[in-house]
């Protein structure tokens, strides 16, 4: 059985201009210990998806429908109190901005300890001892001194390490990392990605990595799900997705990113553009959400939304024209 099963997740927001369908019926699963990447551009619903999994969407104006099953238990049917026992314990989360997601007036030790005291009932001394242990695990030098420091005394990379320490302190089954390295410099990003992979293996957690950076996806993920305008347009194992993308949007994204080293192989050429921009999510989109920007679009695409189809083994795409591989 999959660790997490999401079925027809819909997260809608009521706004003065109408209903915003930020996530519009997506289904996916995550296996134990697996790394799934969710990729897409701003506004495609990838962050709202992750917030929905944690039930961090304010209701109202938000509304989550569908089913989110963690080892068979539907999180959407739990009371707020039951949900609190799961957050930070079974499922934990790392956010993009390590400055704003740490409390500036508490020491990092207190913040790591809070999770431990709440979920594992450790007392103050034990929690601090464990916090020091966690800090050294995430590679912070002098953990016994750092544990008494405040977030502003740490650099961006160190703060993200503290976030990772907090999120892993209770040995979660699922770690959701929402753009964990976007705010960091490349050399620090490389450190943090390596640390995450290393710890994930040690703790045995599954990871949902949310990112817009296809380079990070290629390095870290095992399976990839591509989102566009609140819908899932493609899903495949990582090597398969990069080698033979089926959906025109995925193809466009891959063509729009220059590869390092392209000037050496003579492959440096004009970047592929995806014309136009992401459609507004206010108001229902008839047909395929990508039709307005797609070179292949026909009347069929504009009228009928394509369903997800298995185009080859474990490779799904939602496009009328993505050819199926001859079995």
């Amino acid at each position, binding site marked *: 059985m999959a660790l997490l099963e999401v079925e027809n997740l819909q997260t809608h927001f009521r706004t003065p201009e109408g209903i915003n369908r930020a996530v519009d019926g997506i289904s996916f699963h995550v296996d134990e210990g697996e790394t799934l990447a969710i990729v897409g551009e701003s506004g495609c619903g990838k962050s709202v998806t992750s917030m929905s999994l944690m039930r961090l969407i304010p209701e109202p104006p938000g509304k989550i429908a569908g089913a989110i099953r963690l080892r068979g238990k539907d999180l959407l049917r739990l009371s707020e109190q039951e949900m609190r026992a799961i957050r930070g314990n079974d499922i934990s989360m790392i956010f993009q901005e390590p400055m704003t997601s740490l409390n500036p007036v508490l020491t990092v030790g207190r913040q790591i300890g809070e999770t431990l005291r709440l979920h594992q009932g450790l007392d103050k001394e034990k929690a601090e001892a464990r916090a020091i242990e966690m800090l050294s695990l995430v590679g912070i030098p002098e953990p016994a001194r750092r544990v008494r420091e405040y977030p502003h005394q740490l650099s961006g990379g160190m703060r993200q390490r503290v976030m990772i320490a907090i999120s892993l302190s209770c040995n979660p089954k699922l770690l959701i990392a929402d753009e964990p390295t976007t705010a960091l*410099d490349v050399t620090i990003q*490389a450190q943090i990605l390596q640390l995450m992979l290393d710890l994930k293996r040690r703790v045995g957690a599954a990871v949902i990595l949310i990112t817009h950076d296809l380079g990070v996806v290629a390095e870290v993920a095992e399976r990839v799900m591509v989102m566009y305008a609140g819908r899932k347009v493609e899903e495949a194992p990582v090597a398969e997705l990069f080698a033979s993308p089926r959906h025109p949007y995925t193809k466009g994204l891959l063509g729009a990113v*220059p590869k*390092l080293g392209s000037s050496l192989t003579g492959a440096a050429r004009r970047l592929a553009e995806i*014309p136009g921009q992401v459609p507004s999510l206010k108001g229902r989109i008839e047909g395929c959400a990508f039709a307005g920007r797609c070179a292949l679009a026909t009347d069929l695409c504009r009228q009928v939304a394509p369903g997800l189809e298995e185009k080859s083994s474990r490779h799904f795409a939602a496009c009328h024209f993505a050819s199926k591989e001859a079995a």
Partner: protein
Amino acid sequence: MNAPLLQVNDLKKHFPVRGPLFSRKANWVYAVDGVSFDIARGETLSLVGESGCGKSTVGRAILRLFDITSGQVALDGQRIDDLSPERLRRMRRRVQVVFQDPFSSLNPRLRVRDILAEPIRNFGLATSASELDTKVAALMDTVHLSRDALDRRPHEFSGGQRQRICIARALAAEPDLIVCDEAVSALDVSVKAQIVNLLQDLQAEFGLALLFISHDLAIVEHMTHRVAVMYLGKIVEMAPRQRIFAAPAHPYTKALLSAVPVPDPSARRVPMILKGDVPSPINPPSGCRFHTRCPFVFDRCRAEEPELRQRAEGQWAACHLEDIPETA
């Protein structure tokens, strides 16, 4: 002989910061500490480096958004770092800028028409109202925006479209050099490609020189002619594109390149992962500024600061090592 369009010689910019509470002693941030380079007409030079390395400060010093601490900046052989305000105004026409955030760099209360007309009027580039209108309309065509959009205000546009407006505004002054300070960093992948292509087209069409400040090495490689790598206020390596991406001569460049995630899962590489963080520019390390993180550090690095030395045609690096060892 063609003199370079822009020459920067030993540029320094130190910012004062307040020392400890109640102490009179001020500290200095050595944001840019002795940087020299030049840019030819129609050339793109990229300044790359991590946050706090001083790359944006260099860009702003060239634009003269503040006075520099020491050094010289010359445009067409004429110094611009000590110009009187009146002559500075005329210089500003020739060097324009596109910033990272297209939301905060456009005045929300102006229509696009007025945003684009302002530089044309200020620099007296149109002799009549009808010429002004023609120029403004032509600018919209150049950046592929609809002329119908001239009467709209910035909030009605998407991020990519606003960045097109910023580029059009820079072009309105008919500059020789545009400083692009992380001009595509805030944009989504598909929109980023549109803007990168636009900048390349404009460079070919108008013979513009670009100072492209960025931390995105893949984009830099795609569009630059030469690259200067900065670390803690200094240039550690400068070379033509092909050279720097094929055979970096400074360990920092090598680490930077190897840290970039490649969008190709079959490319299994061993990244050279640097330890620690960038030290503070308030109190930079002695000797080579990179010595605290360099895997190949030896005694001389801690004591003596390496000069930029030529390694190959056009390739300069500031490192005591002759070659970078294969492994640390």
